[in-house]
Every structure is written in structure tokens, then in C-alpha cells.
């Protein structure tokens, strides 16, 4: 019984340690991203050119087709 509880406790400690370890690693990783401006570099070299290409090739409404007539409304009168 005791052994089982000890095993369980160890497991929990291991889990906490593992979680803390992962969190610490993630934190350190994020700090690296921050410090070396990796977010900026990803956005500048990859994301923005991709999005720009997407928007440059997007089909858009032809302004010439937009009607230009009087809009009837109560407040106009």
C-alpha cells in the first residue's frame, strides 16, 4: 500500500518536474525568439511576402461597375 502511494507520489513529482521543465524550456525558447527577433524575421521574410502575394493576386471589384445613382431615403427630402 505504502509502496503504491510512494510510487504515485513519485509519479506526481516527476510530472510536476516534467511540466516545469517543459515550461522552463518553452520560456527559454520564447526568450530566444524574443531576444533574437525571430518573430520579426519570420514575419518579414516569410509571412508578409506570402500574404502580399496573396493580396496582390486577389480578384477585386472593378470600380467602374459601381452604380452612381441617387439613393432614396427619408432624410434626403
Amino acid at each position, binding site marked *: 500500500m505504502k509502496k503504491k502511494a510512494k510510487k504515485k507520489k513519485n509519479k506526481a513529482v516527476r510530472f510536476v518536474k516534467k511540466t516545469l521543465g517543459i515550461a522552463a524550456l518553452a520560456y527559454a525558447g520564447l526568450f530566444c525568439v524574443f531576444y533574437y527577433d525571430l518573430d520579426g524575421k519570420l514575419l518579414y521574410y516569410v509571412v508578409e511576402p506570402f500574404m502580399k502575394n496573396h493580396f496582390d493576386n486577389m480578384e477585386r471589384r472593378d*470600380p*467602374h461597375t459601381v452604380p*452612381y*445613382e*441617387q*439613393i432614396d431615403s427619408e432624410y*434626403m427630402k
Partner: protein
Amino acid sequence: MRDLKHLIYFEDLLQEANNELVRKGKEDGNLCLGYTCYFMPEVLLDLPGCFAVRLRAPKCTSPDMASYYMSGRTCHYGRSLLERALEGGFNFIDAQLATETCTVTCRFQEHLEYMDDVINNATFKTSFTDVPFKKNANSIDHYRKQLKIKVLDFLAKEYGVDTSDEAILKAIKINNEVNDIITEIGNFRKLDNPTITGYEFSVITLVSMVCPKYLIVDKLRETLEELRTREPDDKPNFKIKVLLAGSENDDPDFIKLIEGCGALVVADRHCYGSLEARQHIDIREGEDPLTAVARHYLLTSQCARFMEQKEMRHRKKVLADYAKEYNADGIIVESNKFCEYWSFERMIDTIVLPRDFGYPVCSIEKEYINTASGQLRTRFQAFVESVELKKIQEDK
């Protein structure tokens, strides 16, 4: 066509702002009141003892001093006026009745107010009127109040001018006389083969804006009589007829340039043009004269600064209607370089007028004085050719 008897005399009057009749008007003991914009009702500056002069800066091609004050990136018209003022060319005006209606002319007038020595005239003062951007009842009411405070009360207080209803009625009367004459002269442009050119008409209209009316009205009337019997050339010396629309233009040579390319200018909806400025002022029943003036000037204007949706959309139709009324084959929409109202308006006119109303449009940007005319001439010639071709295709 036979030359108009007074044309050279009229042309001479346009050579300088302080012309012979302005000098005569002042010698007669009248106050000379300057203004720039249609929204300053000319009629209120023609009260007994005063006369209105719409400011121009003829032959000002290089406004160097004004460019120091207003940089080289503002409308050439506003800068030219300031240049002329700095040169002493406006010392004859006794007061400037100003409006904040377009930015650069407003700035020009602010310089007159701010710089002590720019107008060398001891009586000189400036008064600014706020002009609404809409044409509803609230706007007319506001405009009327502004005209009362900033024009009538100002003139009465500072110069002892009689601003009573009777005085306004007298001013309306003389203005209407001129308006009716010019309108009637303008109607000759509606003929299939008009008996007046756009250039001649432009000179006549301008003269009526820059001289005391009581001194010019007789010659205008005489010109009208002359036109009644004037025979057109047997063979029209134009290829197409056009409506000229857009921003400020007080340069008859610009119209001459257009006509030299084969396009007769038969209608003029632009600042310093006649279609708005020379409409008869009516006084409705029960209306006091000042209200009539406020209503008239606000409602007759088709300026690109009006912002109500129905007005923004309606003024394209007004242009098309004018083109139809004057039998124009096409429309030239011009804007002065750096004129922001008409830059935007010209863009939309260029697309909507051909698409929705079937009128070909020539869209051009110009200077105040168009000395470099080669490029413009090419544009106009190309436009005339394209409209001619269109007409030929339609005839087939």
C-alpha cells in the same frame, strides 16, 4: 464673324486688376471691395457706395515671393494673387471680403489680414465668412447669419455703408440687369452655329466681374444688341462643341487655346464662369432680400465642396444637363494643379459622365496661367479627333 465692337476695350480691362473702370469707380467716391469666391455674394459688395471686384492676377507666371510664403506646392491661383498683392497690385482695394471655401485662397486672404503692410491702403480691412457645405435650411440660415455679421455689419460698422433692405434691393437690381444681359449673350452659344465664341464670352463675363457694374453695363447692353444681328460664319470654324467644367479659370487665353484646337466652348461651369454667377436673383414672396441672397448663392452653386450625398451625385447630372442644353458634344473637365476639390471631382467625372450620361470627357490638369500650352494642345486635339470619330460612327 465680324469683330465685336467693344472686345478690344474689354480685353484691355482684363490686363490689370486696377483697370480704368476700377479707378473711375474709386474716383467717384465708391469703396472698392475685393473677393475671390462665388460664395462671397458679389451683390452684397455692390451696395450703394461700393463696388465688387473679383480678384485676378493676369500675366502672373512666376509667383516667386508668394512661393516663399505659400511654398511651391499650393494652387498657382492663390499664390499668384498673393504675388500680385505683394507687388502692390491690390493696393486699390479698400476691404477684402474673404471666405474659407478653398484652402489656398483662404490662406491668401489670411496673409492680407495678417501681414500689416501687404495692402498699402489705410482703410484696408479683411472679414472672413464661413460658408456651409450643404444646401439645407439649416445651411441657408447659417449662411444668412454669417453674411449679416461678416459682410453687412462689417461694412456698416467699418465703412458706414448703407446695408438696409432697400440698399440690398438696389444692388440686386443692378446685378440682375448685368446677370440678364450676360445670360442672354450666353444663350447665343446654344445656336447650332453660335454667333459668339467661348473666348469672347469669357472676356465679357470676366469684365462684368472685375469692373463696377454701373460703369460697364452700358457697353454690355450694346454688345448684346450687336450680337442680336451678328451673322455667324457660313462654315463653322469648329469641329465639336464642348462644355468646360472644373476649377478656377479666369484666363480667356485658355479658352482660346481649346478653341484653337477645334472645340468651341459653349458652356462654362467653372469658378469665374457664368452659368452660376450670372443667374437672375429672385426674391420669393415673404422673403427678405438678405435671405434671398443667401438662398440664391447657396442653391445655385455646383461647387465640388458640397457634401450632401444627393448634391454630390446630382452635380454630375447638372453637368450632363448643361451639355445637353448647350448642344455640347463633349465635356472638358479641368482642375488647377493642387486644387484638391477638383482633383477628386475630376476623377469621378471622368468615369461617370461617359458611362452614365454618354458624354466623352477630356480630363486635364492645368496651371493658372498656361504658358506651356503644347502639351495641352496635344490633349485637346486628340480629344477633338476622338469625338469627331465618335460622331462619324454615330452618323453611320
